[in-house]
């Protein structure tokens, strides 16, 4: 499945496209310092060590993800590779002053495929809230349709045959410092205050072009 161009092919810990305190008060600087500075960094560092000297060394991140998913019977590099990809995608799914309802073509498509933005909101919320344990919720694009998907642990829609457009990390480390057990509050805050619809739109354009 063709790549989402925004995610880098080499194993670099790319900083979020905003300062670590820029998402406050919705997502604290402390959370970004740990989540990006420790968790995401560890996935990148561990991936480098893991593929060193193997046939996967130097291969694009998405190549590693697709080749180690193994139909769900995950090969060892999958977790680090997918989590490195997922986290970069996550930072770029958010922006300061984000959230709320999109406009233009994106809104039209959400209304076409979910009946209304509110129905999409509820479905995305429910997916994020009911992904049991660690995982992610996604807006994805496949077969000319938008859909909501939830995945466990490190799995992402690339291995399920669709283009990721938006994600929220629902591993506890993503929200525990700011929200403790209150995952629903975290999800609402993400939807209302953080989503970068610009990022979603440009990913959608890339997905449409790749599907054409």
């Amino acid at each position, binding site marked *: 499945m063709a790549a989402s161009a925004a995610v880098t092919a080499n194993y670099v810990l790319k900083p979020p496209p905003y300062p670590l305190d820029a998402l406050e008060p919705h997502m604290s600087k402390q959370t970004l310092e740990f989540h990006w500075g420790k*968790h995401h960094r560890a996935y990148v560092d561990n991936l480098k060590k893991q593929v060193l000297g193997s046939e996967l060394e130097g291969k694009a991140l998405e190549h590693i993800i697709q080749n180690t998913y193994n139909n769900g019977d995950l090969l060892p590099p999958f977790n680090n590779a997918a989590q490195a990809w997922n986290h970069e995608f996550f930072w770029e799914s958010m922006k300061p002053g984000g959230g709320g309802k999109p406009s233009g073509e994106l809104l039209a498509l959400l209304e076409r495929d979910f009946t209304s933005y509110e129905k999409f909101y509820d479905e995305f919320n429910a997916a994020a809230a009911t992904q049991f*344990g*660690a995982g992610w919720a996604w807006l994805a694009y496949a077969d000319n349709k938008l859909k909501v998907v939830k995945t466990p642990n490190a799995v992402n829609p690339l291995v399920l045959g669709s283009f990721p457009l938006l994600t929220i990390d629902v591993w*506890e480390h993503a929200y525990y410092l700011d929200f*403790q*057990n209150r995952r629903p509050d975290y999800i609402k805050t993400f939807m209302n205050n953080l989503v970068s619809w610009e990022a979603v739109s440009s990913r959608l354009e890339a997905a449409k072009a790749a599907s054409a």
Partner: protein
Amino acid sequence: MAIRSVASRRTLAGLKETSSRVLGLRGIQTFTLPDLPYDYSALEPAISGEIMQIHHQKHHQTYVTNYNNALEQLDQAVNNGDASTVVKLHSAIKFNGGGHVNHSIFWKNLAPVNQGGGEPPKGALGGAIDTHFGSLEGLVKKMSAEGAALQGSGWVWLGLDKELKKLVVDTTANQDPLVTKGGSLVPLVGIDVWEHAYYLQYKNVRPDYLKNVWKVINWNYASEVYEKEC
């Protein structure tokens, strides 16, 4: 005591609620949050009082509430002969029932230092640990390594295979109880490695949590369970 945490009652298809708060209409037993036999702060500095309170009052309570709800829905579906709903409810029962089972064991697996927390196991269990793992240190090293390596959420266990009469170390994902790894497995010690079990105190450094939790492990309880099964 039992009343305060019982899930709200539902009226079943036109039938009236019974007067019993704990037994459902057809006698299904619902569950309540067990009290801890120690104060929230009693396990410090190994596990903070803040974590213990949220872990018990929020996470475990939510499992209990959701488990009770799922059981009521199950009861209704069973009575209606609604096979597909019965099957659909299985994951909610496994998640939430497993969460209740696992955490109920976990609170007993922990004890303040002044109540024996951290004291090495003696007697039969101590001997069995030495036989199977070389030493307590060997067991601790193995469990800590497996707990640290677990991807996502789950538990690391010391269990007794009561058929083979041997100790095993294993992990389970999410809230799967140990018995899902083998019908003859009895949990002796479980360590919660979900991030909620340690994040506020240890952040991303799960290995530090695993190093420190042994200081408050209640080997007396594990020995009791072991001796009962052997």
